C-alpha cells in the first residue's frame, strides 16, 4: 500500500476533496441554536430582515433569530418536505401567494401553519382596535382556508402601468385622457408597429397577465367556497378580450423576457408600457437604470368607465408553523417585521413594496417623489389604489388551476393566430370549460 493505485486523476480529486474539506472546516457555518428561525425566498426581504432582527433580539433578551434565504422555487418543495418529515421546519416562513394554497390540502388539523384568526381579530384592550381593522382585508383571502387565516399578508401589490413618458410625450399621448382599456387600446393601435414597437408588455405564453385582467374584472380561479369559477362568463369575456391583444395581426401586446432582456426592450422602445405591481417597479429601477426620469406610472385603465383602476399581481404571506415552540414570541417577531411603521417605511425605500398594514402608509417615505419615475410620489400612488385591489380566493389546487388557465390561454392564442376571430368564442368557451373541468376532477379526487 505504498502507492496510490487509482492514478493521478483520482489522487487529484482526493486532494481537491481534502483541500475543500479543510477550507470548509476553516469556515464553519455559524450554528447557533436560534430561538426562532425564519425562511424567506426573496433577497430583498432577507436583507431587510437581517437589519431588523438585531433590534428584536435587543427587545427580547435571550432571544436569537436565524434567517435563511431559501430559493424561490425550492421553498415550497422544501417546506412541504419539512412538514412531511417533521424536520427542520422553520418557526416562521414566508410563502408566495401562488403556492400558499397547496399547504391547505389535508384536514384543517393537519395544516402545518398556526391558525392566526384569533390573533388577528383580537381587540387591543387599550385602543379597542383589532389588527384586522388596520390591514387591507382583501389580502387575507389568499391565505384563508375554510374560514381560518393562516398567514399575515406582507403586501398589497396594486398594479399600475409603467410607461415611457418621453415617447408618449413625443407621440402626443395624454395619459390623463386614458380612462378605460378601450382608450388605451385605441392609443395602442396607433403606436404599435409590428416587430418594432408594442404598446404593452402582455404575455401569450402563460396566464400571468391574463390572471391580472381576470382579477380586475372581478373574476378569479375559485370562489370563496373553493369552487372552480374561471370558466364562468367573466372568465370567458376576459379571455375573448385578452387574446386579440396578444395574438393575430392587430395585437398591441408582446413579451420577450425579464431582466436584461427587458433592459434592451424598454431602452429601445420595443415595449412602451409595462405591467407594474409595486414590487416590479424596483426591478425596473435596477434592471433598466438608463431610462431613469423617462418613466412614469399611470393607473390601470378601467374595464368600464368608473370601474376599478387597478388589479393585483404577486404576494407573500408570513406564517408561523405548528412546530414553533414559542408561538407568542414568533407572533411578536412577525409583528416586528410586518407592523413596525418605521421599519416598513425603510423597507419601502428599498423594495417599493406597499405593506398591507394601512397604518404605515402615512409615513413620509411613502410620499417621497422618485426621480426615476419622473418625480412621481410612488407610495401615495399605490396607496390610493390599494382599496380597489380585487379579492382572490385560494384552494389547495391553485397551482394546478393557474397551469390550466395558462394552457387554455395558449390554446386560444394558437387558435386565434391560425383561424382568427371566426368561431373563436365557442372555441374559447369549450377550452376554458375543459381546463376548469380538469381542475374539478382533481378536486373530486382529493380523499380529504
Amino acid at each position: 500500500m505504498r502507492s496510490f493505485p487509482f492514478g493521478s486523476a483520482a489522487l487529484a480529486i482526493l486532494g481537491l476533496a481534502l483541500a475543500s474539506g479543510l477550507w470548509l472546516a476553516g469556515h464553519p457555518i455559524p450554528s447557533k441554536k436560534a430561538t426562532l428561525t425564519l425562511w424567506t425566498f426573496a433577497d430583498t426581504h432577507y436583507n431587510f430582515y437581517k437589519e431588523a432582527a438585531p433590534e428584536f433580539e435587543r427587545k427580547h433578551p435571550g432571544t436569537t433569530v436565524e434567517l435563511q434565504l431559501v430559493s424561490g422555487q425550492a421553498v415550497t418543495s422544501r417546506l412541504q418536505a419539512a412538514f412531511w418529515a417533521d424536520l427542520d421546519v422553520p418557526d416562521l416562513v414566508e410563502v408566495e401567494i401562488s403556492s400558499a394554497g397547496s399547504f391547505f390540502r389535508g384536514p384543517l388539523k393537519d395544516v402545518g401553519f398556526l391558525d392566526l384568526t384569533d390573533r388577528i381579530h383580537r381587540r387591543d384592550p387599550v385602543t379597542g382596535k383589532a389588527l384586522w381593522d388596520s390591514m387591507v382585508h382583501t389580502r387575507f383571502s389568499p391565505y384563508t382556508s375554510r374560514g381560518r387565516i393562516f398567514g399575515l399578508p406582507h403586501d398589497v401589490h396594486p398594479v399600475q402601468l409603467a410607461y415611457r413618458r418621453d415617447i408618449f410625450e413625443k407621440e402626443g399621448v395624454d395619459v390623463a385622457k386614458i380612462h378605460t382599456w378601450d382608450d388605451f387600446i385605441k392609443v395602442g393601435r396607433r403606436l404599435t408597429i409590428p416587430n418594432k414597437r408594442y404598446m404593452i408588455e402582455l404575455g401569450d405564453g402563460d396566464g400571468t397577465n391574463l390572471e391580472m385582467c381576470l382579477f380586475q374584472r372581478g373574476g378569479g380561479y375559485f370562489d370563496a367556497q373553493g369552487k372552480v369559477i374561471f370558466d364562468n362568463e367573466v372568465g370567458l369575456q376576459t379571455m375573448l378580450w385578452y387574446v386579440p391583444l396578444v395574438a393575430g395581426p392587430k395585437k398591441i401586446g408582446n413579451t420577450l423576457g425579464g431582466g436584461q432582456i427587458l433592459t434592451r426592450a424598454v431602452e429601445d422602445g420595443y415595449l412602451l408600457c409595462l405591467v407594474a405591481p409595486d414590487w416590479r417597479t424596483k426591478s425596473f429601477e435596477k434592471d433598466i437604470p438608463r431610462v431613469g426620469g423617462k418613466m412614469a406610472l399611470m393607473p390601470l385603465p378601467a374595464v368600464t368607465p368608473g370601474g376599478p383602476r387597478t388589479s393585483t399581481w404577486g404576494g407573500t404571506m408570513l406564517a408561523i408553523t405548528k412546530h414553533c415552540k414559542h408561538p407568542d414570541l414568533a407572533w411578536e417577531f412577525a409583528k416586528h417585521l410586518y407592523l413596525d411603521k418605521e421599519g416598513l417605511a425603510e423597507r419601502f425605500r428599498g423594495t417599493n413594496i406597499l405593506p398591507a398594514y394601512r397604518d404605515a402608509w402615512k409615513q413620509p417615505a411613502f410620499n417621497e417623489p422618485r426621480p426615476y419615475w419622473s418625480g412621481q410620489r410612488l407610495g401615495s400612488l399605490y396607496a390610493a389604489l390599494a382599496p380597489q385591489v380585487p379579492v382572490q380566493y385560494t384552494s389547495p389546487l391553485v397551482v394546478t388551476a393557474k397551469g390550466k388557465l395558462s394552457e387554455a390561454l395558449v390554446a386560444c392564442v394558437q387558435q386565434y393566430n391560425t383561424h382568427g376571430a371566426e368561431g373563436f368564442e365557442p372555441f374559447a368557451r369549450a377550452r376554458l370549460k375543459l381546463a376548469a373541468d380538469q381542475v374539478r376532477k382533481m378536486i373530486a379526487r382529493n380523499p380529504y
Partner: protein
Amino acid sequence: MRPNALQLAGRGVVYLALALATAAAITPVLWLVAATTKGPDDLFHYTFFAPRLTADSYRRLFTTFPFLRCLMNSLFITGTTVIVQLFFSSLAGFALAKYEFRGKKQVMLLMLATMMIPGQVVMAPLYELIYRIGLVDSYLGLIIPGAVSVFGIFLFRQSILQVPDELLHAARIDGCSEFRIYWDIVMPVSKPMIGAFCLIGFMGSWNNFLWPQIILHHQERFTLPIGLNRLVDLYQQQYGMLMAGTLLSVLPVVILFLALQREFVAGLTAGAVKG
C-alpha cells in the same frame, strides 16, 4: 498513393462539414465567454463582445453572491462522492469479477434489476430515510446516497474480467493477501477504467440538481447548480452573474476532462465495444 482530384474535393467537403460542426459546438460557449465580459446593462446590446470589457460580473459574483462557498461545497461533495464511489465500486466489482461466492448471482440480478429503475422513483422514500438518520441538510445526505453506483460496479466488473487470472494466481503464490491483490495488481492495471469512471462520476455529482435541491436547506451548503439557479427567478434576473458563474462552474470539469481525455474515451468505449 496520392489522392486524386475527386478524393481531394471529397476531403474538402468533409473538412468543411467538420468545420461547420465545430463552429456550431463552439459558438454558444464563445457567446458564454463574451457574455461574462459585458456590463450588466449591455448583455443584449452586443452580439458577442462589447467594446468595453469589464470583469464586473465576476466581481459581483464573488462579492454579492457566496460563490466561493458554493464552489467549495461542490468540490467537497463531488470529490468525496467520487472517491467513495470509486473505492466501493471497484472493490465490489473486483469481487464480482474474480470470485465465486454464495449469493453472487442473486446480488448481481438484484443490482441489474434496480438499474432499470429511474432515480426519481425513490426520491420520496429516500428523503424520509435520510431524515430518519438525521442527515437532511448535511453533506453526508448527498454523499452517501450518491456513493451507490450500480453502474460503476458493472463497469469495473467488466473491465476487471479482462485481467488474466494467472496474474492473480501468481500473486497469491507470492503470498499477497486478497486486498493486496486488489490494491497492488488489479487497480493499477485498471487505470484507464478508473480515469473514465472518475470523470463520469465527477460530472454526475457536479451537475446534480434535483437531489441537492431537496436535501439542502442552508444557503451555506448549496452546491453550484442550485446556488446559481437562484440568480434567476421571478423577482430578479441576474444574467451576467449567472453566465460568469456558469463559466467558472464548468472549468473544473473541463480541466479534468482535458487531463483524462484519453482514458475516458478508452474506458468509456471499452465496455461498449467489447460488450
